């Protein structure tokens, strides 16, 4: 399906990542937004507040992030595409109901424009330290999808992908921006509506009495949904449940339910995962990065190549699910992975796990507040080949 032209502000703009993200969401068909202001994500909410009344969207500023997250799940069950945005402390508050969205298999998009933490940390300065929280932040076992854009243009393009993935896999999709990406102003081209592909909600069309909100018997088929108010009289719960959505509180039901939640993502990593590779084939060292760090790393990579070092780059566009297979493959052919990230070591742990001792992983940490000095990354590359 193609995008609704009403929501597509075609043209070339000089725009920051936050605004591009808002425009992308509107182009993707998002028409329900609930949020609570927090730096550095507020501009997204502000843009949506301004734009929604003119595109038939429903904006509500909730009393907190707990409420924002709960509201977008409720709204998703009316058939609409929904989003909330936040940063740091607000992301922590959303964790509770991100788990609910996972359990209820509700498509929705959560944007986290990362800033320095912990706690109130660095409200106005960048960080990438919520990456593990994105994966593990809500209690219990589950899988979800997290994307990480690195430019204003990608904030626009990739948020559309985020909405599409959410619908395809009936899962909350986390959009992990960082303050730099959110506040960096660059050229953004918004194409014609017919150039934008949208995954519509898959609605159930069978007999009403046969409807079940879930399908656990295979990871390839995701059950179609219905909307509240259409006479299906369905029930859904955050409790462990069966395919009818009825609570079932025992170990067997838990096994079936959780296995399904995990399988539907884990067994489809190849279909979901997006990575951007460059100069990989003959690389001795691969710099793995995401978000703003991937752009800072480029400077170091360029410099290293000028110095005759064979450096490849791998950018995680989807961070979760993790491209485990690909990293394993590469681990057998390279001397080292270099991982610059604006945290004290998060994704590097995941690379280390996948490399499983086949190649050393070298973390270039940064506590946040600013991006790496490319020199530090270059130094790590140099040391790796020395």
């Amino acid at each position: 399906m193609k995008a609704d032209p009403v929501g597509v502000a075609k043209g070339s703009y000089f725009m920051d990542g936050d605004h591009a993200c808002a425009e992308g969401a509107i182009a993707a068909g998002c028409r329900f937004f609930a949020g609570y202001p927090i730096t550095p994500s507020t501009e997204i909410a502000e843009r949506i507040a301004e734009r929604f009344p003119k595109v038939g969207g429903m904006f509500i500023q909730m009393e907190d992030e707990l409420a924002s997250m709960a509201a977008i799940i409720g709204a998703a069950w009316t058939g609409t595409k929904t989003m909330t945005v936040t940063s740091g402390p607000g992301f922590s508050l959303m964790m509770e109901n991100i788990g609910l969205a996972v359990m209820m298999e509700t498509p929705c998009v959560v944007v986290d424009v990362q800033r320095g933490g912990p706690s109130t940390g660095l409200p106005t300065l960048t960080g990438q330290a919520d990456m593990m929280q994105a994966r593990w932040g809500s209690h219990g076992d589950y899988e979800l999808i997290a994307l990480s854009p690195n430019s204003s243009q990608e904030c626009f393009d990739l948020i559309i992908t985020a909405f599409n993935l959410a619908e395809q896999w009936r899962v909350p999709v986390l959009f992990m921006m960082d303050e730099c990406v959110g506040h960096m102003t660059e050229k953004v081209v918004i194409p014609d509506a017919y150039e934008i592909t949208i995954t519509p909600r898959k609605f159930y069309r069978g007999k009403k009495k046969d409807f079940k909100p879930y399908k656990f018997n295979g990871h390839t088929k995701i059950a179609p949904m219905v909307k509240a108010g259409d006479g299906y009289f369905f029930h859904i719960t955050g409790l462990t449940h069966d395919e009818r959505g009825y609570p079932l509180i025992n170990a067997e039901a838990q096994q079936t339910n959780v296995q399904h939640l995990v399988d539907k993502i884990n067994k489809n990593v190849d279909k979901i995962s997006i990575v951007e590779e460059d100069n990989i084939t003959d690389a001795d060292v691969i710099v793995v990065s995401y978000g703003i760090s991937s752009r800072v790393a480029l400077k170091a990579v360029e410099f290293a190549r000028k110095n005759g070092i064979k450096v490849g780059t791998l950018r995680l566009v989807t961070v979760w699910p993790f491209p485990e297979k690909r990293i394993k493959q590469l681990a057998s052919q390279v001397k080292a992975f270099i991982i610059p990230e604006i945290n004290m070591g998060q994704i590097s742990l995941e690379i280390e796990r996948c490399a499983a001792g086949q190649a050393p992983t070298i973390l270039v940490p940064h506590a946040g507040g600013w991006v790496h000095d490319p020199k530090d990354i270059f130094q790590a590359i140099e040391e790796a080949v020395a």
Partner: protein
Amino acid sequence: MKYWRVPFDRDKIDIPHGDIHINIDRCKGCSFCEEYCPRDVLKMSTNYNKKGYHYPDVIKQGECVNCCLCEMICPEFAIFCIESSKDTIQKGMKKGSNQEATS
């Protein structure tokens, strides 16, 4: 205090009568129905149901005025009343009819 008064024109007005239906095994023996039936139609049995609760007996069937208070107050959906004179099907649903209602 009871909610019921005998009206002066009792002989002239048509007092409804009810048939009481009790799903004995659904009852949890709270006695709400017995306590609040305005005509003392119900009395807790000395027998036990499958779950081990006493359930209500109808001790004065003819006295039931189909006020449905028992039906309303029962937390277990174990008791309901249908007006005797009318076709019972009107109110009590035939088993299986809700299947149609949802399709």
